[in-house]
């Protein structure tokens, strides 16, 4: 320890009604270093960061910055102490332009309170140039993808020079590999400038790429703080979950059946072009590519969330016109969106209502909901999927990300479709829940379902898929069989 410590937390305790979220945590961040914080959802990472950022206040314990005791009781106070935080779930104003977004809450004004837009434009241009990014300053945020916005958020936070302590909560959950490299370059340059970075992540390869120190939290307790060199991936995973994972991917050999989904030269103007592929029963197909390659857009068009210009969608040998989500759902094709909060859950309603939402007709007799049947089905499904919830009447918003995802999956399982379109099914959920989602995918494939998965995590695709299609700039650039899988082969196709 000593002089080099920038931020020090001492004996931090925090309880919420009914749960002890943090139990006697001692944590410190040094100058010019990256301290990775990892742990499953519910381990207390976010609570700890929110205490540092002034969103919550600790019940007991002290926070020191530069060895001076500080009282952080609001995010504004945190900012004054040089703490800057990038949240995992982005909140942004869709109508704002790139330029405006850079200066929100920090507008340079003239003496008379007039906003100096010239100065802002100059600043924004400089920042983008400095960071090597090419965005039109007048583009509205609503016209950008999540990953673009995330990148801009990060750039904004790091360009704010007064920040000495930068907290990043899973900054890579929505961005592609090249963008991750860009981000890591930024982080390294920040480290050289002597900043303290606290980096929260689930992704092991990332953690070991960027960390100087690693701290693992489990159930509100600190289980290890060690330099990276003294740890390896298996150790960290087992510290996080408290048990050894025998294998990372529960892939099984499943007999491939009939062709269930066939897509012929699907086109959508300026978004994707001539998409041809098929999926068989029992098969797990991966879609790889950089963010912006058009993978999600293909899935959305198939599911009826967006329209397509031309092409054929053939399910079980029958040509289908998809104009709305009803068309795809009625033909046994469902989609799990990458944006769970937006397209997946009804947060203010119960686990039960969310689970049966897509298949209510199943529970209607003479216009009346059969409550008993509903309860039975939902309880059985929750048990099968291992959804951790106090009761099926709990609001979905009260569950952890992984359990919310399981509820969305459960909704589609109740519907019992033939084809699952999964868009980043494990994004933002912890290792244990990921493994359960993989197991579910395998179980579905075993039952003869066809699965199509878009993922930005190559290990996941390589571990779970039978075939991988790679997309680049709206076009399919290749198809790989399982024996040909390698990160290098996929990346080569992905960059075009």
């Amino acid at each position: 320890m000593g002089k080099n410590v920038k931020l020090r937390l001492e004996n931090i305790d925090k309880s919420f009604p009914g749960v002890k979220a943090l139990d006697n945590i001692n944590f410190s961040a040094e100058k010019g270093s990256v301290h990775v914080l990892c742990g499953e959802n519910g381990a207390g990472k976010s609570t700890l960061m929110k205490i540092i950022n002034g969103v919550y206040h600790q019940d007991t314990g002290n926070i020191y910055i530069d060895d001076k005791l500080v009282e952080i009781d609001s995010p504004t106070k945190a900012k004054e102490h040089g703490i800057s935080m990038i949240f995992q779930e982005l909140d942004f104003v869709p109508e704002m332009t790139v330029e405006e977004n850079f200066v929100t809450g920090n507008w340079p004004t003239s003496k008379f309170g007039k906003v100096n837009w010239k100065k802002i434009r100059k600043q924004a241009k400089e920042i983008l140039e400095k960071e090597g990014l090419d965005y039109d300053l007048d583009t509205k945020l609503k016209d950008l993808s999540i990953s673009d916005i995330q990148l801009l958020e990060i750039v904004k936070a790091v360009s704010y020079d007064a920040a000495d302590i930068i907290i990043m909560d899973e900054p890579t959950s929505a961005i592609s590999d090249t963008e991750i490299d860009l981000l890591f370059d930024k982080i390294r340059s920040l480290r050289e400038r002597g900043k303290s970075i606290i980096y929260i992540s689930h992704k092991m390869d990332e953690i070991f790429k960027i960390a100087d120190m690693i701290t693992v939290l489990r159930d509100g307790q600190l289980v290890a703080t060690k330099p990276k060199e003294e740890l390896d991936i298996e150790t960290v995973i087992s510290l996080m979950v408290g048990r050894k994972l025998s294998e990372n991917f529960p892939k099984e050999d499943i007999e491939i059946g009939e062709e269930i989904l066939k897509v012929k030269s699907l086109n959508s103007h300026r978004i994707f072009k001539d998409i041809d592929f098929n999926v068989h029963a029992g098969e797990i197909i991966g879609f790889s590519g950089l963010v912006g390659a058009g993978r999600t857009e293909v899935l959305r068009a198939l599911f009826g969330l967006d329209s397509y210009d031309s092409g054929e969608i053939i399910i079980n040998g029958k040509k289908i016109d998809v104009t709305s989500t009803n068309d795809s759902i009625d033909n046994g094709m469902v989609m799990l969106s990458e944006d769970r909060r937006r397209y997946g859950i009804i947060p203010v309603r119960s686990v039960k209502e969310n689970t049966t939402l897509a298949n209510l007709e199943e529970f209607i007799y003479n216009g009346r909901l059969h409550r008993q049947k509903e309860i039975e089905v939902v309880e059985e499904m929750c048990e099968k999927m291992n959804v951790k919830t106090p009761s099926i009447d709990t609001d979905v918003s009260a569950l952890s990300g992984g359990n919310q995802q399981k509820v969305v999956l459960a909704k589609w399982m109740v519907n019992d479709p033939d084809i699952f379109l999964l868009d980043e099914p494990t994004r933002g959920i912890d290792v244990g829940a990921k493994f359960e989602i993989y197991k579910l995918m395998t179980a579905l494939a075993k039952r003869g379902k066809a699965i199509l998965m878009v993922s930005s995590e190559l290990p996941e695709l390589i571990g779970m898929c039978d075939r991988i299609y790679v997309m680049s700039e709206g076009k399919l650039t290749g198809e790989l069989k399982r024996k040909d899988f390698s990160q290098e082969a996929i990346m080569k196709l992905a960059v075009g």
Partner: protein
Amino acid sequence: MKDLKLGDKFSRIKQKYGIFLVLILLFVVSSLINSNFLSVRNLTNISRQISITTILAFGETILIISGLLDLSNGSVLALAGLLSVSVFKMTGSLILAFIVAIVVAVFCNIINGIMVTKFETPPFIATLAMMAMARGAALLYTNGQNIYRIGDYTVFGQGSIGFVPTPIIFFILIGIVTWYILKHTRLGRSLYAIGGNEEAAVASGINVNRKKMLAYIVNGVFVGIAGVIFMSRVNAGLPNGAVGFEFEALTSSIIGGTSFSGGVGTAGGTVIGAFIVGFLNNIMNLVGVNSYVQQIIRGGIIALAVIYDTRTKKMRTKSQLGNVE
């Protein structure tokens, strides 16, 4: 895990019955303040007084749950009631008059629904426009004159079955219908989902526009019935009647726990909200509060109800974050 369950249960109970406790408190305090309050006659009176606005409030609750709104219900009530009275005077048929009221109100609400679903107008604006149009149409129809001598038409609002006045019977029936729709039908579930997260509802295969239209149609039926009861009670066809009823209906719904951000609300809550409003008005009258002051108090109460709604939501999210993270 067990603690969490208990905590969860407790907050649920508070959430569910908090407003009921307010009602009981108000009831007890009112009976202590004024001895006239606790008479069967006064209580029946209150029920009858609130019946029309509560019927509107049931429709409003269904709409707000779905992320919609109706500001036109007072005006549409007047137009529907007026035309109904007029048809009765021409034909002498009570049944036909009743049907006309419903048809007119449903028609206006179909226009509301088309504006909201097909032309994607915000419900606030669409129904604000309807509020002006329906009122204008009512005044135009009689050239601003009232229609008197409505004869047997009074049976809808002034009659009774046994000792129960007809408005209260309608109030109870429509309450049950609302409860049934929200709790026991596919439509109800879909509306909660649409109000809770419209995009997720679309992605779950719910025909959102169709359900929204149905919500407005149901609202139209309620408004039409309210129109019949209203004209029958005031013993005339009043093109200028029921002004400001949308405010009373909204107040009852919001106080009853319907969340303005959608996805949350119940028929039972609305009844409680309506009685809170009714008791307050009644006790203010009994103790002789100046009617202008009453209006200020009513405005203050709806502001308080919304503040309460926002705060509980914040608290809920906060305690949930605690559970999760």
